[in-house]
């Protein structure tokens, strides 16, 4: 049973992605594949540091001192692939004061970390895109099987925390089919799911992709069906499936939240510490010196500079609910305004789909079939609410 965490209110807890290594043991289509196609793209507007150490280059004591200044500090172990650095993970978990540990991993090496450490994770976010065919298509042949085997292993070894499927979604994904598969299948059913659209992160991809047709004809209708399925499930089973984008929006709408800053927390409550110790608003913003907020050797984790999205997000009709989707995409503007408006349409569609189902949800709560507490979750833990 996953414990809901009411204490994680805005501003009381800081999350830090610790980038353990810049190396990865996979070559996924939406990362390696996209970078290969972006050979001519650069960041002429920013000063970039391309000389980051391959591995964490500061000592655990300094990380401990840094985290120790925030009694509620939560560490998210991150990479590229963090489990390439098992020794460092153990040193951090043994030596750094953190209220919780979370890891985001591709799962290939989960079996290499001893159960005494794995079982201490509050949440393990595992990159998996859906069923075997789809996951292996995006991430490479055999990736799915290895991850599933490791997940069975860690469950067998006593892991009882939250196991979240972290999907990357693009044109080959049928969102309705794949999210339902991840939540209920014969291989390994996840307790929660979130996803991120591969959209607005690369410079050259839009022109060669079919994002417009796919988002309008497949993804958006799929989301509407999925939200309906989610509420149907509540009615039938008197339980709320932990589909993060839906949870986040319902929670905001039900609580009457007037406005939401970035829902991933990037740049205001969730930061990333690079391998050289510099702190950036988000792991995607590695090396962008213009957005360094300090160094962990001397920064106060509770007084870090905050960044928020700017136009076009701030003049959008749904900004108060959406919160801006992605700081990196908003700042770097890799896609044109016209192309990015399709991404905004997906956010609008998602919010509309949830709003449409709200009367049914209210009735289920009123009838006592579900409780508002069922929608609570640890905010800013790395899960995307606006994909």
């Amino acid at each position, binding site marked *: 049973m996953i414990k809901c965490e009411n204490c994680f209110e805005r501003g009381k807890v800081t999350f830090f992605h610790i980038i353990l290594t810049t190396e990865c043991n996979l070559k996924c289509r939406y990362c390696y594949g996209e970078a*290969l196609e972006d050979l001519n793209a650069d960041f002429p507007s920013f000063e970039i540091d391309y000389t980051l150490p391959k591995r964490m280059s500061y000592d655990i004591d300094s990380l401990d001192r840094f985290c120790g200044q925030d009694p509620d500090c939560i560490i998210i172990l991150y990479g590229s692939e963090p489990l390439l650095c098992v020794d460092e993970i153990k040193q951090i978990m043994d030596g750094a004061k953190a209220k919780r540990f979370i890891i985001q991993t591709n799962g290939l090496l989960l079996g290499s970390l001893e159960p005494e450490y794995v079982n201490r994770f509050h949440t393990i976010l595992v990159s998996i895109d859906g069923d075997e065919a789809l996951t292996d298509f995006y991430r490479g042949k055999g990736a799915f099987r290895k991850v599933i085997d490791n997940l069975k292993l860690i469950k067998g070894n006593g892991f009882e925390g939250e196991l979240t499927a972290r999907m990357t979604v693009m044109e080959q994904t049928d969102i309705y089919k794949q999210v339902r598969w991840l939540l209920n299948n014969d291989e390994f059913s996840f307790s929660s799911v979130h996803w991120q659209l591969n959209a607005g992160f690369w410079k050259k991809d839009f022109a060669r992709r079919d994002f417009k047709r796919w988002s309008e004809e497949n993804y958006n209708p799929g989301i509407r069906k999925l939200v309906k399925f989610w509420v149907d499930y509540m009615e039938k089973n008197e339980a709320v499936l932990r589909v993060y984008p839906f949870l986040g929006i319902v929670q905001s709408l039900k609580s009457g939240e007037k406005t939401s800053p970035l829902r991933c927390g990037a740049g205001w409550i969730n930061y990333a510490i690079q391998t050289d110790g510099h702190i950036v608003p988000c792991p995607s913003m590695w090396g962008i010196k213009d957005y360094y907020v300090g160094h962990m050797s001397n920064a106060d984790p509770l007084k870090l500079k905050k960044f928020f999205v700017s136009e076009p997000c701030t003049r959008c009709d749904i900004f108060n609910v959406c919160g801006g989707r992605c700081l990196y995409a908003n700042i770097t503007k890799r896609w044109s305004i016209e192309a990015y408006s399709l991404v905004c349409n997906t956010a609008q569609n998602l919010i509309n789909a949830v709003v449409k189902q709200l009367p049914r949800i209210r009735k289920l709560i009123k009838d006592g079939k579900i409780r508002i507490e069922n929608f609570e979750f640890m905010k800013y833990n790395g899960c995307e609410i606006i994909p």
Partner: protein
Amino acid sequence: MRNNPLNRSLGSCKMVSFVKIEGKTVKGVFKQRLTRFSALVKVGIKLCRVFLLNPRSVREILTQRVGVVLIEILTEKRKTAYDLIVITAFTSSRMCEK
């Protein structure tokens, strides 16, 4: 893979696994960084545009004539035939240049 000298540059921590290197590797000499993800490398007598597998951590290739190891990947749609996988961190005039 564990005894592969190519892995020496992967850092000081004890590795439990390695980034798997499959395929033909060739040596080259770094000439110039072109963009975020690409660099110019001399392979034999040819100047080749190569893909930087780990673009974040390329301190060593700020210096020209540093030796590098490339992996050759010949597929139809790729814009470059090589990934730069390892910087051997020494300057060489013998390796590939003529």
